[in-house]
């Protein structure tokens, strides 16, 4: 854990974001203190604090005075939104560029996209689904 090329605090922030995205950390749930985080993963407490401060600024976490850090309401939606916005640039464009390098014709790529679109039911953004079904999100 945490031995990637990015700065340590970036890796820690990514780890916490992933936990929120996967639902391992629910909204309003308390996250580990910087001390717990530091001793669990054997990292400097200041590095963990730097990661958490960044997540507070992003709106993923918030601080309750005297109690610690909690996952902000709407944090998962926030991360889904930014993940969706980054998807084309970070995932799709490199995949298409790789297809071009490999000489895979665009119609083959498109056929695959169509096939998977038929296999997987359309995944509308959660907020859109909620709006359509009238679900009230807490």
């Amino acid at each position, binding site marked *: 854990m945490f031995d990637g090329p990015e*700065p340590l605090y970036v890796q820690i922030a990514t780890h916490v974001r992933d936990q929120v995205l996967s639902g391992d950390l629910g909204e309003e749930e308390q996250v580990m203190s910087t001390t717990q985080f530091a001793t669990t993963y054997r990292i*400097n407490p200041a590095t963990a604090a730097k990661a958490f401060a960044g997540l507070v600024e992003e709106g993923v976490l918030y601080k309750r005075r005297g109690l610690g850090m909690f996952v902000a309401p709407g944090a998962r939606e926030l991360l889904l939104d930014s993940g969706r916005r980054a998807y084309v640039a970070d995932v799709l464009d490199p995949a298409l560029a790789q297809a071009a390098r490999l000489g895979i014709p665009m119609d083959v790529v498109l056929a695959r996209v169509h096939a998977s679109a038929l296999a997987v039911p359309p995944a509308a953004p959660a907020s859109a689904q909620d709006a359509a079904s009238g679900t009230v999100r807490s």
Partner: protein
Amino acid sequence: MTTAPIAVAAHGLTKRYDDVDALAGVDLEIRAGAVTGLLGRNGAGKSTLLQLVAGFERPTSGRILVDGEDPFDNAVTMADTQLVREGGDAFASEPVTDTLGWYRDLREHWDADLAAGLADAFELDTSQKVENLSRGQSSMVGAIIGLASRAPLTIFDETYIGMDAPNRETFYEALLTDYAAHPRTIVISSHLISEVERMFEDVVILDAGRVLVHGDADEVRARGLTLTGRATEVERLLGTRDVLARRDLGPTSQITVLTQPGDELPALARQAGLEVDGVGLQDLFVHLTRRTAASPEGESR
């Protein structure tokens, strides 16, 4: 005796033994309250620097300041500084408890419960005579003294030798737990870089008595990059940057390069379709200190 963490500064610090400069004009600052990693090859001057900080020796020239004061033979700064040396500084022919008792009387913030808890965690029988301890057990005594002293400036000079991996884990975890609860300035000198580097906030690399690199550990780590891809493309992007290692695999090159903070090379290389990887502090250290004629590049902060 203060309780606040204290800073260390060196200006042109030089220490000569006979004809050899163990330290040759070291300028550096160790930030109060941070955990600083001090790295260097054998004979790089790490222990000399730490002895000067602890006030055990006097510089040949230049200055060393601990909390703004000259530490040599200085009762005030020495009361605030706990250097754990490789030798252990324990009463050899007496039980471990005698040594711990001596430190308890010496160190104002000594925590006897912490010392006892650590001895338990290490499964160290403190009724044994120090001279009968194994190398690893002597290091445990050093670790206990260093942590339980809670000195505002705590220095561990290779306090791990002979300890097995589980005991080193115990030590690191205890250090982080106690540091988080009682922040102080901690300096760790170690050759086991990959297992301790994530505990560092700052890092100093000494080489042949000089400061080779000094800065925020994350920033220092980020300066080492490995680029892999088409040789001509790698070469083109490289420019005049410092090449630390090079491997040519036919038309493909893999080059480890030292970048300056804020360098756009990673982004440019990714755009050009090259593979960009970090090298880790351990590898960066090996690459940087392997070059025999390395010229000091000054501070990176």
